[in-house]
């Protein structure tokens, strides 16, 4: 399976930013500081369980419900 990582990251950014482009940018930056670079993942990226678990933990820290 593929694309789950991008879907989760998009959801985090959308929920956090609520349409504010400035918050889109800062949320992307925060993800990079946490070790996940959203631009590295596409709809074809394989669903790596370790990365998915890491993203779910980050979402919880950011107060985002996935």
């Amino acid at each position, binding site marked *: 399976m593929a694309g789950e990582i991008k879907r989760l990251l998009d959801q985090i950014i959308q929920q*956090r930013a609520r349409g*504010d482009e*400035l*918050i889109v*940018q*800062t*949320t*992307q*930056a*925060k993800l*990079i*500081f*946490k*070790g996940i*670079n959203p631009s590295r993942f596409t709809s074809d990226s394989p669903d790596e369980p370790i990365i998915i678990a890491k993203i779910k933990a980050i979402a919880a*820290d*950011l*107060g985002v419900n996935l």
Partner: protein
Amino acid sequence: MSLKTAHSSKLLPEAVADLKRGCGNLAPRAILCFASTKYDPAALSAQMQGAFPDACLVGCTTAGEIAGGTMMNGSVVAMFLDEDIVEDAGAAVVHNLRGAISVREAFVELENHFRRPISSMDIRKHVGVVLADGLSGAEEKLMERIGDCTDLTFVGGSAGDDLKFKQTHVLAKGQAHTDAAVLLLLRLKRGFEIIKTQSFKVTGKQLVATKVDEASRTVLEFDGVPAVEAYAKTLGVVPEEIQSHFRDHPLGLMIDGEPFVRSPQRRDGGSIVFYCQIKEGMELQLLEATDIVAATRSAVEGRKKALGRVAGVIDFQCILRAQQLRAEGRCDQYGAVFSGFPSVGFSTYGEEYLGHINQTSTMLVFR
């Protein structure tokens, strides 16, 4: 008048009297003060709060102070912001940075002061200043916790101790704290801008951290080989020489084409210890030094031109940049960049903006 700066190199209590005179008739709502370790931090904080009982006071100890474009040592500098700049100001302390950091209590304190949830605050009118214990080694975790809790911008620096590397302090509301950070939240009348400037260009040579010890800010391996070996090979030098290249060739975590600098501190066997954390899997660009003064001038003048009016600037400048400017005898050239508007700042043990960074100046620009 909406903003004033002042400085003194006298001892306490005369130094506070000097700052009070420098403030003149201004009624400050917020005061930021940055001081050499020659001042007892608790006494300075108490005397400053005593001199300005109605102001929200924050500050920290430094590794050098900046006021009006002059880089100094052994002094105390202050910026006074009145109601024309700051509509409201609140401060809170985050304790126990070396433990499990929680910013919740500090945020609740700020919410109580502003009488509204942080999440409801306009991110273009509110800005946070963060001053952290520069020897805590915990700024990354602190910035992550802050960023988790809010979308408000927090900018600042890590407190210094005049290069003694023994103990730093942050100041808030008449007290001094170590192993702590102070958060100042400002609601501004005309908004703000952030400048993040570093004097490096990207070389196009990349290193990926494949084995790290985050807690000790150590990279054990880049690209699957010992960090020293990989860094040396990428730079094109022998491993024995790498430390002499650290200052001019740090690494950059790239975000939107901008490097967020991670500076190597020292070799530890085959590993490299950095001044800030690198996480496993991070892709980093090898950077090459350019001119500090030119890069800073370009960043500040560009923003000045875009804004038309700059009411004042706080400069959180890395001690490594300050040391280089001093060694090259270019402090006056650097100071000249800040002519035309009031400014204060200090030489930091690390800079904060979105995360913890090195060899950078982060600046809060008041409009």
